[in-house]
Each structure stands twice: as C-alpha cells, then as structure tokens.
C-alpha cells in the first residue's frame, strides 16, 4: 500500500535530480608545457568555475591515453610551450582540449565550456593591456569517437539493459511461476537436486542472453560502425560474466518473490529503472547528487558499461578493467550466496 504513495515521490525526485545534463565537478587532467603565469591563471579559472576538478597533473612524455583508459579523467587540457610569450608577442597561443568521447554528450559540453572559459579569460584579462588582435587557438579533439556518434554510447547501455531484462527478469519470473503453480513442490519432491532444478531453469536464459549480446554487438559493429578495438573474446567473456551476475540476481529475486506478479514488480522497479537512470548509461554519474552517486556503485550495469566501453572504444585489456571485473564477480558470488541462504530458510 505504501508503495502507491511512495512511488510517485521517489520517481519524481529521482528523475528531477538525475536528468541533469549540466556538468559539475568533472575530472580533468592538465599538461602544461609552459608553466607561466597565464597558464596558471587559466587553470585556476577552470578549476574555480565549478565545472571542473583537477584530477591529475601530467608531464611531458606521459602517455595521455593512459589516463583515459584508466577512466580517471574526462578531458585533458594541454597548453603549448611558451604560452605567455606567444600570446603577448603574436597574440596567438595554442591550447588543446582532448576529450573522452566514449560519452559524446559530456565530451561536447566539457570542451565547449572549457574553451568558453579560456577565451573569456584572455579577452577580459589580457586584451586590456595588449593592442594586438588577440587569438587563442583552441584545438578540440574527441578521442575514441571522432564523429561524436551517440550510438557508441547506446550499444553498451542497451546491452546492459537487455541482458538484465532477459537474464534477471525472465529467470525470476519463470522460477516464481513454478512456485505459484505448485510444480516447484513436485520437482523438489522428485529425485532432482535443487541445483539441477535451478540449472534447468537458468540454462535457456543463459543461451538466449548470450545470443542477444552477440546480436547487439554485431548490429552495433556492422550496422552502426561501432568499433571493437579490444579483444572480441575478452568482450564476450565479460558479457558472459555479466549474464551470470544477472542470472544469479534473478534467482535471488525468485527466492524472495512468492509469485510472478511480485517477481515482475521487483524486477522492473529494482532492475530496469536503476539500469536506465543510475548506471551512467543515459545520464553521467558525476552530475548526480552525492546519495545517488553512492547508490550507483551498487548498480551492476554501471561497472559493465565501463568495461564494455573500455574494450570496444578504448581497446583496453584486463589490466584496465580488472577492478570492475572483480566487482561483477563479487556481486555474482553475493547473489548466489544469498539465494542459497534464502532457499534453505524456505525449506526448513
């Protein structure tokens, strides 16, 4: 009963807070080849704007792509050598904005904000004393997704959503259906072991989900031109892990839900909405308020999307996604453990 009154409140707050395309506190890295007053002042301007947080200071010779692969920052700002001299002598200076366009919307906003702040600074602070036609040459590069195609973002997101839907929801519904109809009792009274019953229920969905994952990737690659820069086998292995995680979550739901209706309700409410809203699929996580940002850590798709984007767009291997992989494995183990515990309680 409570749920009827709580639902609109929660939904409204969630949507209102989450659907917020403004950026704030995005982590950026700086590669400053000049280290002069002007660059220092520009960096201070960027950081004090509230849009950016200085995540890392790079040095000449550092592998710029590495910081993107590790997912530490969203943009790297590079100041060319002798920035101040060039600006004062010729009125020209070079700055490069390199953005991680695996999330194209954020990349677009980040680069336009940053170049706005830089140009604004130069116009206001520098133009007053210098009579030359002042000009900052801002070069913008979109890494991993030159064309800013949004399909690059949708393929991983849709994959997470569909796999969640098929694996977790269908499994929980089909197992609770047996409970509801009484056939589960008959199976339990038969010589079949519980593990055999569960495997029997889960295997078809494992196969279906795997075929689905494959189909989404193939359509993404051949129809929309999304690249797979990393290993295909590794990509499919990670998908397999995610499917296992979702299946164990489905089993867990079925141990809690007494019938199909409840299983369906839990699945939609607990799986679908968070997958869409809190996984970073549609809306960047760093823009969310702190409680939701913390909550998003508990969303399996969040980690899966990071892994998929890394493998497909950035071409990384296990070295850069081992943390996310471990989290998914941990979640799978927890879900299976809880299911076994619930199952035993029910039998007693």
């Amino acid at each position, binding site marked *: 009963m409570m749920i009827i009154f709580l639902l609109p409140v929660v939904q409204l707050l969630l949507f209102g807070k989450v659907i917020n395309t403004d950026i704030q506190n995005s982590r950026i890295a700086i590669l400053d080849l000049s280290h002069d007053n002007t660059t220092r002042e520009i960096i201070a301007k960027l950081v004090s704007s509230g849009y950016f947080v200085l995540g890392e200071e790079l040095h000449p010779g550092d592998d710029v792509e590495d910081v993107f692969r590790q997912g530490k920052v969203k943009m790297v700002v590079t100041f060319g050598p002798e920035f101040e001299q060039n600006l004062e002598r010729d009125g020209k200076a070079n700055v490069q904005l390199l953005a991680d366009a695996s999330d194209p919307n954020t990349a677009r906003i980040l680069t336009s904000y940053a170049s706005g702040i830089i140009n604004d600074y130069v116009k206001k602070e520098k133009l007053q004393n210098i009579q030359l036609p002042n000009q900052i040459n801002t070069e913008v590069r979109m890494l991993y997704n030159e064309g800013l195609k949004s399909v690059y973002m949708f393929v991983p997101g849709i994959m997470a959503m569909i796999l969640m839907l098929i694996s977790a929801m269908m499994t929980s519904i089909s197992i609770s259906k047996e409970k509801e109809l009484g*056939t589960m009792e008959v*199976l339990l009274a*038969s010589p079949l072991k519980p593990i055999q019953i569960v495997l029997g229920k889960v295997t078809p969905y494992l196969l279906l989900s795997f075929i689905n994952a494959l189909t989404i990737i193939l359509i993404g690659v051949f129809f929309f031109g999304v690249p797979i820069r990393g290993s295909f086998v590794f990509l499919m292995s990670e998908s397999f892990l995610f499917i296992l995680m979702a299946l164990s979550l489905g089993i867990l739901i079925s141990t809690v839900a007494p019938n199909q209706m409840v299983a369906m309700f839990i699945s939609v409410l607990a799986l679908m909405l968070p997958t869409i809203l809190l996984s970073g699929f549609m809306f960047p996580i760093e823009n969310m308020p702190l409680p939701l940002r913390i909550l998003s850590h508990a969303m399996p798709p969040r980690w899966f999307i990071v892994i998929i984007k890394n493998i497909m767009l950035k071409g990384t291997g296990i070295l850069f996604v081992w943390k996310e992989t471990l989290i998914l494995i941990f979640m799978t183990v927890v879900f299976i453990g809880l299911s076994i515990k619930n199952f035993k309680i029910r039998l007693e």
Partner: protein
Amino acid sequence: MNPYPDLHQNSPLLEGLGEANQKVIEVRDLVKKFGNFVANDHLNFDVYKGEIFGFLGANGAGKTTAMKILCGLSAPTSGKVKVAGFDIYKETEKVKRNIGYMSQKFSLYEDLTIAENIRFYSGIYGIKPAERKEKMEKLLKNLDIESARDSLIGSLPLGWKQKLAFSVAIFHDPKIVFLDEPTGGVDPITRRKFWDLIYEASDRGITVFVTTHYMDEAEYCNRVSIMNEGRIEALDTPENLKQKYGAKNMDEVFLKIARNKE
C-alpha cells in the same frame, strides 16, 4: 454410507501376517517447530504396504507440515522418520526416488500437453522412452482420454486434471504416493471417480498417504489419523473409530474429537 464396504476386510491390520504387515512409513517422536510454534508435537505412527492412510485434521492442524517432512520437502526439528525403508535425514535421495507426490495446487504444466507432461516427468524419474510409450498408452486408455493426448492441460476440466496429476504421480511406480488434498474444488461424484484410481493403485501395492478434510473421503480410507493442534488424537480404522466414539459417521467422530479438546 460406505460405497466400498468390502475394503475394510482387506485392511492390513485385519489380514495378519505377510507382505501387508511391511512398514513403509515409520514415524517416531516427530517434532517440527517454527520458532515457538509447534506444528508437529511428537507424532508416532506406522503406515503399512498397500494401505490407504488418511491424514485428517482441520486447517492448520499440522497435516501438510508432516506430509512435507515425509516427502523430504522440509526437515524435521527432531524425531526418527523412515520412508520406504530409508532414513529421511541421511537418505533423502533414495526416499525421493521411491515416492510420488501430488500437491494441493496440482502438479502438471498447464501450458504443456498431456503427452509432454508425461514425457517431462518420465525424464525426471529416468523412465526409458520405450517403457514410457507403453505405459502412456495404458494410462490414456485407462482414463479414456486417448483423443486428448495432444491437448494442453490448461484446457482440460478440473476433474480430468486431478486424475491425470494422480496418474502421473504414480507413473514411476513409487512405493508410496503422497496426496495433499487432491480433490479440492470438485463435486462428490468426480471425487468418487478419483477414488477409483486410488483403489487401483492400492491394489497394485502402492501405499497411499492422503490428507483431506472431506469426511466422506475419510470413510474410503483403510485407516485414518485425526490431528488437532499438532498432535495425533486418534488413529484407527473408520469402523473402530465410529464404534469408539459412538458416532454414525466420520463427520461425527471428527466433531467429537474436536469438542473433547475444548
């Protein structure tokens, strides 16, 4: 009153020695607690081979709990239980191989046909295809539903479904079949037809353990036990119980026992 008067003469208790005295279920001091609530309070009884054993009691008396323990669906808190000669704690697997179970809610897949359901359950109990085909023909003929073999279970009338569910539950020739209120929601005539099947099974040597709260069904059993608040208050043949309590029928016996408790 009793449509099967000859049956009590076959009662294993009266027959004396021989195969009929073989115990297929032995229960000693069975206790099952849920927290502080005692669902089964020191139950003691034996069930003999080929017997139709009625397990009576009001709703919540603890009969379904006890039955679930006997089927290995639930673990007892304490006590000794042997089913089909196997220990319920240590040899659950073997117990399950030797029993059939028909749940209250019914146990066939509504979205599969009769033949598909039989194939599925044959698979679970490891019945070979050749044997399955032969037995299935017999079953369909016996129930007179040969024409419906490819009909979905969901499209059949309730009486048919119950008969089918029972036939499937004994398809693998178990030593004991457990029926949990098998005839709920059908009229007395359909119920009696269902009991014809139970007698056939009993004649084949299958022990039938049935819970019910229909008192006319209690009359059909060889022996009945009457449970109240987790305890067995009476256990005997319907004839003896009626004599003992000076009652005309089982309904009166049941009411007298319930009243004595209050």
